[in-house]
């Protein structure tokens, strides 16, 4: 166990080093995120103006929504359209064979790699973009958290979001670990959390009768729950609930992922050469 942890930490370090080499791409990523999120914030400004004039009131204020958008932009690294590129390449060209020649549990081996890729992206793209966003004027930029205690519960919740996002991606990876398959099912599975995590629209702006389901479904924990804690639409006193949801779903995905992976490895076909 101790040995596995040390090996995984070492893997994490080397993958992080590898990811930090892509500096230019990180820079252009930051610019994209800033521009895109600013446009969205402006659009929400227009929507809210007309909604308030017409007498509607949603689950969030405009200020909370804009703050939510920037937190989402910071955590966006947790969602992608496919699984980790490097692992996908290994699966399709059969190099997965070499990974299996290592005295390591392949699940945790890959889990640490995925995590490293995401942490690198989060630090180099997400956090930098978030910090720059504080400079944007006119109420369209990032804002401080609702309160200091909101901030304190936000941090562990981000940690849980990483756990959850990676556990889900590992489940998809395990399902994709079939060298003779195409990518279709994988893209479909990765699209689900894009919508249900609140990255398209804050979940609290969706119709009232859906709210309970939206909060209990697994993907709220990837972006929505940490963002709610940050903007204060979930009180710090309720943080235990949000985080237990995150941990519960993480555990479920880990158990499922490990099970699928062990079945897949028995029937894997490493092609060629």
């Amino acid at each position, binding site marked *: 166990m101790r040995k596995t942890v*040390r090996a995984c*930490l*070492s893997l994490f370090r080397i993958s992080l080093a590898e990811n930090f080499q892509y500096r230019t791409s990180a820079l252009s990523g930051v610019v994209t995120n800033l521009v895109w999120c600013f446009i969205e914030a402006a659009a929400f400004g227009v929507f809210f103006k007309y909604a308030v004039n017409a007498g509607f009131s949603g689950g969030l204020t405009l200020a909370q929504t804009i703050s939510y958008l920037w937190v989402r932009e910071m955590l966006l690294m947790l969602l992608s359209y496919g699984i980790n590129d490097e692992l996908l390449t290994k699966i399709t060209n059969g190099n997965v064979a*070499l990974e*299996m*020649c290592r005295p390591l549990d392949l699940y945790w081996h890959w889990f640490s790699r995925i995590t490293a890729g995401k942490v690198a992206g989060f630090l180099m793209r997400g956090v930098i973009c978030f910090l720059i966003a504080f400079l944007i004027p006119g109420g369209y930029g990032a804002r401080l958290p609702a309160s200091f205690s909101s901030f304190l519960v936000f941090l562990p919740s981000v940690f849980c979001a990483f756990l959850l996002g990676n556990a889900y991606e590992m489940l998809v990876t395990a399902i994709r670990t079939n060298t003779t398959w195409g990518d279709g099912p994988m893209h479909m599975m990765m699209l689900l959390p894009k919508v249900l995590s609140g990255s398209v629209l804050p979940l609290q702006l969706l119709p009232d009768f859906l709210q309970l389901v939206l909060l209990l479904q697994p993907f709220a924990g990837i972006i929505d729950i940490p963002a709610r804690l940050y903007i204060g639409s979930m009180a710090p006193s309720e943080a235990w609930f949000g985080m237990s949801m995150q941990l519960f779903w993480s555990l479920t995905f880990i158990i499922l992922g490990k099970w699928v992976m062990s079945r897949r490895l028995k029937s894997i076909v490493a092609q060629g050469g």
Partner: protein
Amino acid sequence: MAQILLDSIDKRFKVYERPDGKWGLIKGAFMRKVRSVQALDGIGFQIGEGELVGYIGPNGAGKSTTVKIMSGILTPDCGICEIGGRVPWKDRVKHVSEIGVVFGQRSQLWWDVPVSDSFSLLKDIYDIPETQYQERLRELTNALNIAEFLKIPARQLSLGQRMRCEIIAALLHRPKILFLDEPTIGLDAVSKLALRAFLKEENKRSGVTVLLTTHDMDDIEALCSRVMVIGRGRLLYDGALCGLKERYAAKDRQNIDEIIAAMYEDMAL
């Protein structure tokens, strides 16, 4: 007792085929023809500790499949395989900590980071104590003469340099068995000779068992006292290389490649 023991191993693969004819492309989208191909058909052999064995056969004969089964990557359909008293695919993690594998067409080095980083990662993966690791690394880098490019990322190495690093990566944890799947593919004469000399020396000094698949008959001639020939999933010959030569050499066939070609022809491969 033999270190490596295989007995009547079978492995079949599924192959998907497109139906023939004018509408084959469209028909194939709805129904596929599945055919089963017998990659291994009752393979069995034994290898003792410290042996240096060549494993040859034409393309698609089942060489790599056998190596993959022995390294715990593939599960055979039936048959017995015991290596060091363990069944590779059942006890995968324990098994692979005692073997080293080099696939000539694949790389186990991290592409974008210096080779030395890959090595130190392997140190943690195989749980090698620091002093032993340093000593072993020095020994190997000196023998293969790669000390000067340890700090260069793997992607910037030439094929010959990279292959030497691959061999080191496979030997750092002092495996008892080394599987080499076409290690000399694409190498120039100097690199090939250096690699052969090193393998011979390493086998003699540390007693590592080596199983080598290759298409380069000079590899076999230089290294292996014993050679196994596989064709269509069956073991066709197991013995000394000179035995093969005696049987198939003729006046007009002195070149080892020609001898092997004659043998493949004779066995109707």
